């Protein structure tokens, strides 16, 4: 069984984002790039599944659509424990474009389980996983909070409104993961970092396809009004403000 983890390369989640070029582009100066938090957890879970040899997972591959600047992030995934990596050498212009690239690669080298995150923390698209499954004609399960392998079959936990479901689907499958898939992301050990340098990272040239959407520009959120402080001895006043000023309770 082979697992593919799709990773997106995003600014560290504490980054104070700024834009340049008439607010058309992200100011990348000083940004620390990381593996999208969901993808880091997916990778962790994939490696846990591989560690238990009874599951029969032969390899965990990571794939990324992006330019060479993303290689440190890909190497980090290798250091954490992925066996090999694929980089499709293109600027990820929109989710449709990215999913199409990944689909072409997967068509020529199939995987049994493909893990995507519920969203990238930069553009919050929530799109690539589902699009990829549709391009491939594979089933997809969304809101996945657990993945296990039992008797060679995949068992998935998914969140529904007000509860959980355990579902089974035939492989190959795209699982779109969110909270719960793994507890803490696995951290690269020294040995892993050394080994990552020699693990295979294949670069594939992009496939021709258009993007369906274009980012025109960015805006900063309107700043909230300053906080009104209420005396800790008199919370009654808070309730009055919520009733009369905010009119919400």
């Amino acid at each position, binding site marked *: 069984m082979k697992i593919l983890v799709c990773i997106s390369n995003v600014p560290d*989640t*504490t980054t104070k*984002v700024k*834009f340049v070029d008439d607010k058309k582009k992200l100011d990348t100066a000083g940004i620390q790039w990381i593996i999208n*938090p*969901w993808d880091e*957890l997916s990778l962790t879970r994939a490696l846990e599944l591989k560690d238990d040899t009874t599951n029969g997972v032969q390899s965990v591959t990571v794939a990324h659509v992006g330019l060479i600047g993303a290689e440190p992030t890909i190497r980090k995934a290798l250091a954490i424990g992925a066996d090999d990596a694929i980089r499709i050498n293109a600027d990820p212009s929109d*989710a*449709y474009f990215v999913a199409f690239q990944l689909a072409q690669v997967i068509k020529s080298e199939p995987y049994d389980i493909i893990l995507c995150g519920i969203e990238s*923390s*930069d*553009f*919050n*698209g*929530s*799109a690539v996983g*589902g*699009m990829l*499954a*549709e*391009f491939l004609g594979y*089933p*997809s399960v*969304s*809101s996945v909070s657990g993945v296990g392998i039992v008797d060679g079959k995949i068992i998935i936990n998914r*969140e529904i*409104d*007000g*509860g959980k*479901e*355990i*579902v*089974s*689907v035939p492989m190959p499958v795209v699982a*779109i993961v969110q*909270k719960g898939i793994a507890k803490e992301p696995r951290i690269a050990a020294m040995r892993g970092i050394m080994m990552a340098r020699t693990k295979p990272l294949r670069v594939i040239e992009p496939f021709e396809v258009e993007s*369906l*959407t*274009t*980012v*025109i*520009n*960015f805006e900063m*959120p309107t700043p*909230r*009004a300053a*906080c*009104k*402080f209420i005396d*800790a001895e*008199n*919370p009654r006043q*808070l*309730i009055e*403000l*919520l*009733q009369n000023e*905010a009119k*919400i*309770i």
Partner: protein
Amino acid sequence: MSVLIFVENWDGKFKKLSFELVSYGAKLAEMLNTEAVALSIGNVINSELEKLGNFGAKKIISAVNNSINVFDSEVYTSIIAGFAKQEDAKVVVLSHNNTGKAIAPRLSVQLKAGLGSGVSKLPQRIDPFMVYKKVFSGNAFSNLTINTGIKILTLAQNSFELVETPNNSIINEISIDWNPSSVKTTVTEVQKQSGKILLTDADIVVSGGRGMKSSENWGPIVELADLLGAATACSRPVSDEGWRPHEEHTGQTGKIIAPNLYFAIGISGATQHLAGVSSSKFIVAINTDKDAPIFSAAQYGIIGDASKVLPKLVEAVKVVKGI
């Protein structure tokens, strides 16, 4: 031409978010000079379907098939895509919730229609079609054009006011047939939490962080939530410690919510936490540290020890509610 709105039902019932979605779709249809068509899949009684008409749906399609008893993204995608073609939909609108996020991207590929996900306003313009959406987990927004003839939008929850525009809507019940073997998802077990207000549905949310010190101190939070008809939530360390269940964790890696009122009690307000709650209309923060970042996101703040403030707050609510 039409704007097609997919409205999910929960055991045959709609929720506030369904009506938000129809209100949004109806306004969008007005902008495009066309009609709003609501699509419901599964068994829903007519009196419930009629409610969609009150928010501006001209036509309500009720697609039924008794073997649709599990949620399978491929099946739902095909059904919606079929009606999108039949109704000559220019825009398909879904909710940015679990179900919408599962279907919309597949639909985008099937219809080769650009996707604007998590939009929070009507399009700024319709030619080119430009939508406004959250990026960087709420730290910025982007204006995005969708360049295809058909567009798919998912609407962020609680971002659009209900607009009642009753009209003479018609209900079309259509029985759909498809091959049951095309349903690839099998549900083997369902665990439902019952009797609780769902975090994603709640108008008011009372949330506690590490400043609450231990799980034993949650009593007043639960009591305050009960009094206000609110859901309870927590920060990530709290669910990691097992003080509260994982379903309650809000933030970038937990649930993303947008209630009218969010109480952040003993929560510092890290960017990853705010990513999940910053779309709340009002935030109330209670924290011992006057410099805690949560106060920059809050409209109302109390600087003080939660263990002392909370009981007083609970008493104040009781007085107001006459309990």
